[in-house]
């Protein structure tokens, strides 16, 4: 959701002193190869990218109150489930634990701030380019379909928007932001809006036949190990 009011509670909860910008047309996907959130790009004083888009987290959790309660409950549920999987299926547990390490990501940023180009986390231009997302021409087409889809949705041309969203998803299946944008727009409507409506990113029970997309968040995220959802690109 790209309206200012959707972001404002988060910006206020973080008491952000840095610029907080809205990207309704997903410019960062096209320009930097962002495909999921959170994704982080490091840029040095000369305007040179030293780490391409990768999963990363700032230190601390800054959530508005309405979300904090929900997330706390979800964390307890996840921890309980993780403990069960650990005991019964260690192989699956290892897979679920994989991926970029949340807790140490900020330490890598601090190392770069302290050591600049000598930081072991700062990459060369060639490494940055090679480490950016894969983009054959069909992925460019996926981005074009996504832009049309967003525009058509904003003009209430729903069926045409769905067609372009579906093409964007088919051509860039690895791009979670393209999928979650579409899923949250439709899911929010089905849930009747409100503070939590946009977190509904799949069909409501009994409404599966009305869901206009091939996938949905609970199904796809549930089938994706952490190491695939947030691939490990950085060893702290």
């Amino acid at each position: 959701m790209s309206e200012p009011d959707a972001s404002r509670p988060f910006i206020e909860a973080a008491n952000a002193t840095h610029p907080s910008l809205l990207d309704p047309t997903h410019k960062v996907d096209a320009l930097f190869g962002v495909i999921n959130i959170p994704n982080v790009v490091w840029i040095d004083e000369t305007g040179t990218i030293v780490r391409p888009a990768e999963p990363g987290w700032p230190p601390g959790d800054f959530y508005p109150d309405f979300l904090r309660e929900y997330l706390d409950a979800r964390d307890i549920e996840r921890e309980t489930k993780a403990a069960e999987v650990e005991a019964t299926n260690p192989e699956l547990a290892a897979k679920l634990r994989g991926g970029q390490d949340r807790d140490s990501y900020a330490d890598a940023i601090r190392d770069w701030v302290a050591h600049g180009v000598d930081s072991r986390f700062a990459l060369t231009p060639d490494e940055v380019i090679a480490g950016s997302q894969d983009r054959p021409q069909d992925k460019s087409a996926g981005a074009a379909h996504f832009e049309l889809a967003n525009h058509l949705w904003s003009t209430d041309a729903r069926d045409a928007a769905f067609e372009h969203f579906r093409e964007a998803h088919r051509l860039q299946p690895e791009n979670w932001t393209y999928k979650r944008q579409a899923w949250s727009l439709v899911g929010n409507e089905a849930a009747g809006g409100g503070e939590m409506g946009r977190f509904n990113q799949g069909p409501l029970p009994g409404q599966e036949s009305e869901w206009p997309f091939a996938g949905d968040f609970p199904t796809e995220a549930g089938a994706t190990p952490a190491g695939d959802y947030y691939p490990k690109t950085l060893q702290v």
Partner: protein
Amino acid sequence: MLVTSLNIDATEFHAGTGWEIKPEGACKGEVCVPLPDGFDLASTAERLGMAVVHDETVGMWAVGPESLNGRALVSATAPELVLDDADGNEFRLSSLHGKKVVLVAWAPY
């Protein structure tokens, strides 16, 4: 970039894609791709590996990002990024030149 006509000029192309048309060709960062026949949207998009997708119902075209080298980045030089904050004030990434920048993409789904 969304356009209602394929007949756009180099200035609009630069603003929409970040590729500047210079005497040596279409340029971004230190990368320049020669344009032997000069600039027009269709041939330039083709040279840069940009998909052009048409929607007949609204009479619009969308021009996708370049896919020149098979990677999302053709250069490590950060592209210009121009976005508004929540109060509608325009911000340019280039205004942070001289500082280290950590660009975090997040969403308030």
